[in-house]
């Protein structure tokens, strides 16, 4: 059993250590937050860890679809917070992993309906029962974002190699608590475009963000297919993307994993890029 490693066991021997709550966020939408949560969560659970995935995108939930669990969702986060259902009733067990659970978002409610203090308490409750609580943050930096980060101790920033995604990610890092050390996943990299100088490289992206690099995921059409089918690639032993997600999970679990190998030199074509963030604004 993989245990969270950042919580000291403390003096009280009988109190089990709390799990880690990690928010997956980005600022910009559509960069792959939900896909990342589903795949990293699946990979962590496949290692034997107890994992719960929390969809914090009230009104626009999608994590249930990506996991293929949409028809099994009976209750959601707001039902639990409003005591219309117990936590056990609302947790949906994954089809493939015994130790993986989903807590779905409400689809027909508003983000403003979630009470921040209650959300924090809920994440704390989940940390007592699970090794990892992965929180799927909505796009943007409004109320939904604030409620998604409130119970977490750690953040993973997902960013694609696009100037707009990098700018939004940079903004989000600035909004996280000062004592956090968020880690970066560069998603949807197309090495052949980087080689042609038509896409930012991992170094270009991280030259701006300057975060510890947790992983690099290449762009492949299979991700769309897998999402539409509700079958995370992390379980596919033949998929390179799946193996990249498994490496990220291993790193989160505290294993010493070699740095991601997808590194491409930038052609110097993005000289303009460096000035984007220094301007007025």
């Amino acid at each position, binding site marked *: 059993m993989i245990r969270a490693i950042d919580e000291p066991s403390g003096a009280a021997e009988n109190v089990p250590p709390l799990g880690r709550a990690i928010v997956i966020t980005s*600022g*910009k*939408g*559509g*960069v792959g937050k*939900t896909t990342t949560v589903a795949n990293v969560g699946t990979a962590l659970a496949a290692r034997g860890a107890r994992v719960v995935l929390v969809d914090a995108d009230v*009104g*626009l939930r*999608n994590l249930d*679809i*990506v996991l293929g669990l949409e028809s099994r969702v009976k209750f959601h986060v707001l039902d639990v917070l409003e005591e219309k259902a117990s936590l056990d009733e609302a947790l949906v067990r994954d089809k493939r992993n015994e130790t993986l659970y989903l807590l779905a978002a409400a*689809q027909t409610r*508003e*983000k*403003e309906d979630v009470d921040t203090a209650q959300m924090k308490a809920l994440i704390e409750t989940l940390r007592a029962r699970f090794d990892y609580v992965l929180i799927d943050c*909505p*796009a*943007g*930096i*409004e*109320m*939904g974002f604030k409620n998604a980060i409130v119970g977490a101790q750690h953040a993973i920033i997902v960013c694609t*190699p*696009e*100037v*707009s*995604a990098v*700018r*939004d990610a940079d*903004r989000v890092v600035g909004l996280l608590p000062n004592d956090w050390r968020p880690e970066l996943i560069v998603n949807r990299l*197309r090495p052949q*475009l980087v080689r042609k100088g*038509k*896409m*930012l490289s991992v170094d270009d992206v991280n030259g701006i963000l300057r975060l510890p690099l947790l992983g690099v995921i290449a762009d492949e*059409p299979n991700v*769309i*297919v897998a*999402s*539409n089918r509700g079958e995370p690639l992390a379980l596919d032993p033949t998929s390179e993307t799946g193996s990249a997600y498994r490496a990220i999970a291993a790193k989160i679990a505290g294993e010493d994993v070699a740095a991601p190998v997808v590194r491409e030199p930038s052609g110097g074509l*993005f000289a*303009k*890029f460096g*000035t*984007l963030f220094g*301007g*007025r*604004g």
Partner: protein
Amino acid sequence: MSGRRIVVTSGKGGVGKTTTTVNVGAALAKRGHKVVLVDTDIGLRNLDLVLGLEKKIVFDLVEVIEGRCQLRQALIRDKRFESLAMLPAAQTREKEAVTEDQMKAVIVELAESADFVLIDCPAGIEHGFRSAIAGAAEAIVVTTPEVSAIRDADRVVGKLQAAGLPFRLIVNRVRPEMVKTGDMMSVEDVCEILSGELLGIVPDDEEVIDTTNRGEPIVLDETKRLAAIYDKIARRLGGELVPFTNLDEPGFFGRLKTLWKVG
């Protein structure tokens, strides 16, 4: 006569709202219309980057609303097009800095001296969405052929209908070869689920990544296949009847024919 006020929205982020706003707006401007693009994504603005005008920003939408400058002072003219201007969002403020009524007043004022005001909506359906649609009289819903994007678009369509805004659909990032193999939903499927009228079909094209990073709208280069597609969308928006069959990828309609045969 006052110009058209159109919000470009989607629910899900990253489906191409900003790219659509820029390219449809630029295509309209190329056809001689007077166009203003408004970035309402306060705190996470990007329209300026996609247009390549980020260094020219002096004032922004919030400063206009707070009376710190005149509306015309905040407008940035795009010199590559005769009649295209942009109103940037504030980057270091919150969406709550602007109320729905304030946004509506700005959009209505812009429409007094423009043919088209295109409003780039933030992702989500929170306050930023509500103020972005407040000043609009019609909507373009952008979606991709993915289950999650369509579910989010469906939520947004419900909200637009509740607000009394008519909408048309742009299906973005279609990959005909994946539609053919059954790995991607067809445009017909998408329109049927959302029961909306189709305004445009835009194929997935890696050129968009490059031109976005460079801040050069793809419609600037008439040799690009997407330039012709955005021009057709602009014509349809202007009221012309432009058929979908001539230019769009044969794959979509290949699939449609098979569906008819089966059905």
